[in-house]
């Protein structure tokens, strides 16, 4: 995981974070654009780091936890950049790039330098893992947006508006961005699960419905569908729905860590 392009990506993420944080503190048009450009540069460098790793292991980086974590970070950055362009909102960038930097730094510090070549599993499997990782990245983004929603909501209710209050998007915008992220996540997860099931059926002629990872994944689909439904419901819309979204991400983290590492044999990455 430690290579020059990873360090370059880390540097660009750090620089992007500095620019986003600076524009959050004091708005600056060109610095904001520079932050987006640096993030784009970081994502590009990160892509080449992943590619380099793929050449080394002869597969896409999904076969171990660290490769998967790195792919997750890359997809999180890319999804955020698209959302930023669609919703024309840079104020969340500081939080996303901070997470990106910390995540990639952790991965590059902990990951072993050399990986044994994984068994060949074919493109459908790669597609399955990439889509599922993308779904997790989109859910992470909705988690960040929901946290910001709750903070802004709290500030509005308390009437104690700080300097940063006016810099963040409106509650309605945060809510829409969060739901957009969840739609992306659910779409990616649905296709990811389907491609995984097809791959497994081709390989073994059966489906492992009882695998904890599969069960928890269906649970994730359930809680996020519930979030989307409740966020339109009279009693739940607004801050309560944002709280649900935050809690849902705990399930995602559980699936990504505890389930992957200890509960499943089928989806184990270590």
């Amino acid at each position, binding site marked *: 995981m430690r290579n020059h392009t990873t360090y370059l990506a880390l540097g660009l993420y750090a620089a992007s974070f500095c620019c986003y944080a600076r524009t959050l503190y004091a708005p600056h048009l060109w610095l904001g654009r520079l932050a987006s450009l640096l993030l784009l540069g970081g994502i590009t460098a990160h892509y080449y780091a992943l590619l380099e790793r793929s050449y080394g292991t002869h597969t896409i980086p999904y076969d171990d936890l660290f490769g998967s974590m790195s792919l997750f970070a890359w997809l999180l950055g890319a999804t955020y950049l698209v959302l930023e362009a669609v919703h024309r909102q840079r104020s969340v960038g500081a939080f996303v790039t901070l997470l990106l930097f910390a995540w990639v730094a952790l991965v590059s510090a902990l990951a072993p330098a050399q990986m044994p070549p994984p068994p060949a599993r074919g493109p459908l499997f790669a597609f399955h893992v990439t889509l599922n990782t993308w779904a997790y990245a989109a859910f992470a983004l909705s988690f960040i947006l929901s946290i910001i929603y709750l903070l802004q909501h709290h500030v509005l209710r308390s*009437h104690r508006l700080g300097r940063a209050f006016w810099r963040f998007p409106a509650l309605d915008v945060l809510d829409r961005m969060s739901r957009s992220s969840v739609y992306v996540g659910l779409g990616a997860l649905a296709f990811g699960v389907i491609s995984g099931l097809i791959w497994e059926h081709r390989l073994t002629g059966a489906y492992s419905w009882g695998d904890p990872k599969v069960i928890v994944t269906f649970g994730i689909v359930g809680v996020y569908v519930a979030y989307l439904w409740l966020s339109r419901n009279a009693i739940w819309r607004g801050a309560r729905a944002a709280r649900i979204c935050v809690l849902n991400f705990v399930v995602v983290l559980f699936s990504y860590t505890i389930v992957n590492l200890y509960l499943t044999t089928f989806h184990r990455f270590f």
Partner: protein
Amino acid sequence: MASASNPTSNALRRRDGGIRIALIGCNHRTAPLELRERVAFTTEQSLEAATQLRQRGILEEAVVVSTCHRSELYGVAGDTSAPIGDVLEEFLTSYHSIPRSDLEGRTYHWVGADAIRHLFRVASGLDSMLLGEAEILGQIRTAYRRALDHGATGPILNRAFQGALEVGKRVRAETEIGARPMSVSLAGVKLAEQVFGSLKGRSALILGAGEVAEQVIEHLRDRGIGSLRVVNRSFDRAQRLAARMGGEAVAWESVDGAISAPDIIVTSVGDVGAVLTREKMVRALGARDGRPVFVVDLGVPRNVEADAGSLYNLYLYNVDDLGEIVEQNRRAREAEIPRVEAIISEHVAKFEAWRAALEAVSIVEDLRGHFRREREALLRERLDAAPGLSSEERQRIASITEELIERVLAEPAARLRSSRGIAGHLSSVHALRRVFGLDKKGESGEES
């Protein structure tokens, strides 16, 4: 639009070779409203005044900026021997037919970099009555475009006003001088935007038809509010306000039914106390399927029960809450002044460098003229004392000395043309002028 770097501009062919940008004006700080009214310019008058100033040779380029808070004449000084400030003041008083004594101590006049700095400060909102207000930038843009279309501007004022517009835009993009609301009514509307984002297509209900209600409606209309309903105890008054603002009047008795529909409710009804109780708001929220509602209570005594503020998805702000926000915003705007001044200084320096570049090129022409005059005088003096020289020899001497002047000037001229960096040293240019006696009229760029 004229090229900003046109070296053949009239402005460059002035007797002293320096470009003198001048300004005279009065604003809310220097003159009371009665006096500002007397020196204000209508659109036609501002163009007529610019024409007269140019025709009389007072200014070579002119722009008149006239708003409710200021009347200012900007220009590039012509070949007048009198101090430009006095000439402009004389023009201002005679144009408006007011005694000069009435304006005594009520105007300010600046020349050179100070005039540019003042223009940039005005464009950035630092010189406005409401610190950082954005309207002034539009007013400057209109005044400048009008003068440009009228042919009253030239390369110098084009550059100055384009710089001012750039400063205005930068200041608003990069600082918070104009970002936060400074009135209670606008603060309420801005907070609603923090809940709903764009207010386009949203609905609002206004309780009360007084001045405050009108201000709120104007802010809502500026933001493209979708539907607007006005409720007042006097239905006639509600109808009049609704008709004027493009809304719908609702009878006072129907207020309970009307509060369930809007996203924003603004109340400013005097002497009635709590019109909107917690129970009413609970019913209203239920009827609107829990969608958030933003309530601004500008009434004294309050028109909305304080308890209602604890309802889920109801954001309630009263006049004291908003007053506190406005006060915080005022402090925040004042804290931005040093950053705005830094942007202004950066652009003033840029303008001065550009101006110095123009002057640096013109100084070569002035030196050439100066050397030729000296050469002619010297030749006359020395050749008259040598009668033995043939006409061919005299011509040869004249030709050699002419060649000498060109050779001496060739290198500095080329260096000045090729190197923009040297143009930044305005003081060196002025020093050169002083050394060679090219400044006949004294200094430029000083406050008059």
